[in-house]
């Protein structure tokens, strides 16, 4: 099966600062990848480029057969709507929209809105009784679950999660991890930026960065063996 993500010799510079230095790896469909490394190692830069939020300086990034490095703003916007589901550390929900409307917002920018489908997505993350709550009326864990429902609603090819449990307590972290595992079991391709060893251990592989370079790719199951 062809890899869903191919990263070849990826470079990213901000002036004289080299944020990513010749990174190469591939992700198979349905794989769960943990991107790990210390602060400033380039994890978020990598996930921003994969998500079409930033442009590489050099190298090649292909997602679902589409080389995104040379896409213009309009094509990148379409790419984000069609192929990517984002989950952010800060949740990033629109504060004046309800949980349901936040999910429908992603539908709105993708194609057409389907309220029933959005409700179903929220039920899947256990928020069937919180549809009409605005983010301020939800706990951190619930907000992140809304964000996950929003990320899934357009059946993206890849889910990109940047520190999805970084702002959550242990109980809520457990709920989010369980959800990610369910998504993985359902065949979703997930790339998670994390500092959490627990998430790293759940992933199929860990891509570890140091100073913008690929330090190693570890397969936890093999490491345990």
């Amino acid at each position, binding site marked *: 099966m062809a890899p869903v993500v191919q990263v070849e010799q990826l470079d990213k510079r901000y002036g004289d600062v080299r944020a990513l230095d010749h990174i190469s790896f591939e992700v198979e469909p349905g794989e769960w990848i943990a991107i790990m490394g210390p*602060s*400033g190692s380039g*994890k*978020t830069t990598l996930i*921003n480029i994969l*998500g079409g*939020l*930033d442009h590489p300086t050099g190298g090649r990034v292909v997602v679902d057969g589409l080389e995104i490095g040379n896409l213009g*703003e*309009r094509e990148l*916007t*379409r790419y*984000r*709507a*069609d192929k990517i589901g*984002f989950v*952010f*550390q*800060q949740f*990033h929900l*629109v*504060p*004046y*929209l309800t949980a349901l*409307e936040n999910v*429908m*917002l*992603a*539908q*709105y*920018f*993708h194609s*057409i*809105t*389907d*309220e029933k489908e959005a409700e179903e997505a929220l039920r899947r993350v256990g928020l069937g009784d919180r549809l009409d709550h605005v983010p301020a009326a939800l706990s951190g864990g619930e907000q992140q679950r809304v964000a996950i429902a*929003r990320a899934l609603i*357009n059946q993206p090819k890849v889910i990109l999660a*940047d*520190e999805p449990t*970084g702002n959550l307590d242990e109980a809520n972290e457990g709920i989010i991890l369980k959800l990610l595992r369910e998504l993985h079991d359902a065949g979703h391709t997930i790339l998670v930026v994390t500092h959490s060893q627990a998430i790293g251990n759940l992933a199929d592989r860990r891509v570890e960065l140091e100073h913008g370079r690929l330090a190693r790719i570890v397969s936890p199951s093999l490491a345990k063996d």
Partner: protein
Amino acid sequence: MSSRSMFLRILWKLLGASRGRLAVALIALTSGAAVCSALLNVNLDAERKLTQEFRTLGANVVIAPPSGGNEAALADAAILDRIASLHLARIVATAPYLYVAANSGSQPVILAGTWFDQVSKMNSWWKLEGGAVTSRDDREDCLVGVTAARQLGLSPGSSVQLRSGERNISFTVAGIVTTGGAEDNQILTNLDSVQTFAGLPGRVSLVQLSVSGTPAEIVEVTQKLAENLPELDVRPVRQIAAAEGTILGKIRGMIFWTIALILILSMLGVLASMAALAMERRRDVGLMKALGGTVPRIMRLFLAEAGALGAVGGLIGFLLGVVLARWIGERIFGVVISARFEVLPITILLTVGVALAGSFPLRLLGRVRPAEILRGE
């Protein structure tokens, strides 16, 4: 749910979410719209009322036979019937005049015959001392211009004897009239009396008309009269037409520039609110772009929000403007200014335009880079 329903749903939430800032923008828009609506109402209504007022300032069209070097050229009084048969609604008053040179004792004086009922309609500013002559059948009384009265030693109640060649006529002075014009040197009486006295039945020296309307409308009436009375000279009285045009032009100019200034001030008010709002919405726009929202699609939401604000501000402003116009009319012009509903769409369009122009800072949000806004690291 259709995209339009979702669009309206988000728009509604946007309006509710920033009530404070939008209220400030709405106040700026409503205030501007109220002043614009008031001034436009005043402009339209005052123009109509002022043209009515101008009609009390004397004739603005004169019809006379071409002099051809002969100052005493006369026209047939039948032209009065021909003018009436044209049914020109803008003609407010028609006053024929026949001028005859006469003597009172040894003093030469001009005797003018006219229709006083018509003269009073177009010369309401004439000052009269004593009584008036009102009926066209009154063959006894005359009015004497203030200068002529002084020269001839006449006062209300005295009688005056006039002679022209072998003909004599006498009148009782009903009143002394001050006009500020040529009439101050004349004796005025009924047309029939003068035609009989001068032996010129059915003849007039000229016809003065008071025509209502804007300068352009007056020109239109003048052209129609000239077409139908080709043997006569039909001339607008230039001083009055020019004064009317100048005053209306100045009022229009003042209103135009005041409206422009008010709209600019309103726009600055909106601009200030929207700049603050744009700062608050940077994160939302970054997120929307990350979720696949194109810049035009996101901007449509914000422009619709500004447009809705403008429409509401324009509507409320129009209603307030009607009240303000009424107050201005009563306090300044002493007239009741009625609501002109053609001002409503103009006010709303202007206010929506101001709201859209004032929402410029929101349009700059299109440049937001989502990666910078959403950066978690």
